[in-house]
């Protein structure tokens, strides 16, 4: 979306309103971030009801402990994304572990497979977040080249930029996206992308 990033002032104000116990603020918070939170949870868990549960948990945590968010550490959006990610991965790990046959749970193969699955889901969710947060021109270029199957020359024409610029955007967009594989802690929701 071409929408500019919400200024940190909005984040601070929101936090103050939540701390004051303003139900209207909780509604606004939901309206702004529910689809982000739900989308991330759904990407990790692949299940509508489970994603609903994570969404409920994320907003409940913020509402109960608005002070857990520190505006100096970065945007509220990134913080919520990281929280949703963490809770969803926890849930995935728990449900996958519970699904293992009692005898299997100790086997190294099962443990390895579980880790692999968790990691794959985690990377996919991070990638979604990166795509949604990257500068709009980069996302538009990737959208044309990948989803609309335009080559970079057509992409350049569609975007009204030079071919050099189209190549640059495609490469930079993919470079940003490739950082989804860097499973640093905390996950890549620093807001830099």
């Amino acid at each position, binding site marked *: 979306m071409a929408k500019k990033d919400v200024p940190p002032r909005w984040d601070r104000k929101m936090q103050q309103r939540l701390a*004051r*116990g*303003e*139900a*209207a*603020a*909780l*509604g*606004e918070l*939901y*309206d702004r971030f*529910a*689809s982000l939170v*739900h*989308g991330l949870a*759904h*990407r990790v868990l692949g299940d*509508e009801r489970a994603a*609903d549960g994570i*969404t*409920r948990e994320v*907003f*409940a945590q913020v*509402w*109960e402990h608005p002070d857990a968010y520190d505006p100096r550490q970065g945007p509220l959006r990134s913080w919520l994304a990281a929280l949703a990610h963490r809770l969803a991965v926890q849930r995935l790990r728990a449900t996958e572990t519970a699904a293992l046959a009692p005898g299997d749970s100790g086997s190294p193969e099962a443990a390895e497979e579980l880790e692999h699955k968790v990691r794959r889901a985690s*990377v*996919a969710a991070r*990638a*979604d977040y990166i*795509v949604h947060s990257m500068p709009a021109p980069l996302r538009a270029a*990737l959208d044309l*080249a*990948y*989803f609309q199957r*335009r*080559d*970079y*020359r057509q*992409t350049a024409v569609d975007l009204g930029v030079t*071919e*050099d610029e*189209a*190549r*640059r*955007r*495609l*490469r*930079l*967009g*993919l*470079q940003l*996206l*490739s950082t*989804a*594989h860097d499973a640093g802690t905390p996950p890549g929701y620093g807001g830099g992308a």
Partner: protein
Amino acid sequence: MTGAEFSEAHDGAGAGSGDGDVPHDGGADFGRSPRIPLPRASVEDGGQPLPEPAGLPPVPLELPHDVLKSLLGAWALAACSTAESLAVEVHLGDCGACADEARRLREAVGLLHQPESLDLDPGLRTRVLEACLDRRPARIPIPAWAAPYDAETARLDALLQDIGDAEWHTPVRLRWFDGEAAASRRTTVAGVIAHLLSVDGLVATALGLEDPLGEVRAQGPAARTEAFWQASHFPPTRAVRVPWREQSHRLVQTVSFTGGGAGRLGVAYGDFELPLHDSMLDRAFECWVHAEDIAEAVDYPYGPPAPRHLHRMIDLAARMLPAALAERRRAGLASPGQTPHLVPAGRPGRSLRLEIEGSGGGEWLIPLDSPGAVGSSEFEVAHVALDDVEFCRLAAGHVPPEEAAAGQLGDRAAIRDVLFAAASLSRM
């Protein structure tokens, strides 16, 4: 990522890989899109005998390193020409740095997904917010009479965020009942939101908030809407969504602070006035009705409000019926009634039992002869039964009063008057 070091690495390795017969001057020409004719085409054009199929090895383009590097993204996405792809692939065999990057970018392509449908279950909002408030009750709650507006604006906004730019210009016909006949006005999806923004502005100004019409002066819902539409030389676009949404959020926030006392504050609609809490219910009702207009126009599924919200909206309409009846009688549009004397205020009078079925329903006794009278089962002269959503369609002017699917018993004139009065509650 510094281009210089990669260039050096390439210059050393690349020299041996080029075909001898392709000029390799690395000149400025290569920075532009290269135009090397396809070998087969040129041979055919010249009418020469075709060479042996195997005799023509593909000739990779000879491109400078920074161009090859800049092509990596397009290459990974299969978004460059065959010749360029080939040139990149040949280069990857020679240049470790580019090969590493190419591998990373190809993997990144695998992470691109068609975005999933972002339709959130519209009921999820209520469930999530209720779960939150169970854990920590609000110190500043949203008043019960503002909750339907909060929920309906959120539902409409979810629809709006889901439609494309073009759909904002889909034609929509606003319909209402002008007291005697069906009326309508053509606009677009964006025009409907401009209408909601303008009329919600009545509440905003009553609360001392900024008027979305700015300096333009106009009274009443229709005049304000027309003024808003005319104030711009261009038809409204999706840009109208943000001001509408910000205003609706601000209204909910403000009425939460004004608390119960402000319920008596009046909102002027031009020719009548509603107390603030009724006005917020009225705006919730309008928001739902117009959301359905939009949903129908863009072919989007849309359900009725939550039962307890629907009930409050119906209750407002039922409470407004006696005044609407009196208004119609003054205008000569309703029968004078069998007891033309005024029933003293607060006394029971001739009544119609309005039975609304469905989860938002209930029963109301509508005093027929005076807005000041009290509905009374003792003086019940007629009984009308309607489905909750059908009654709302009637009150929105979307169903002509003659055609409303209503079970009827008793005084036919009274029933007719009440159904017409319900339809005349509607406006643009």
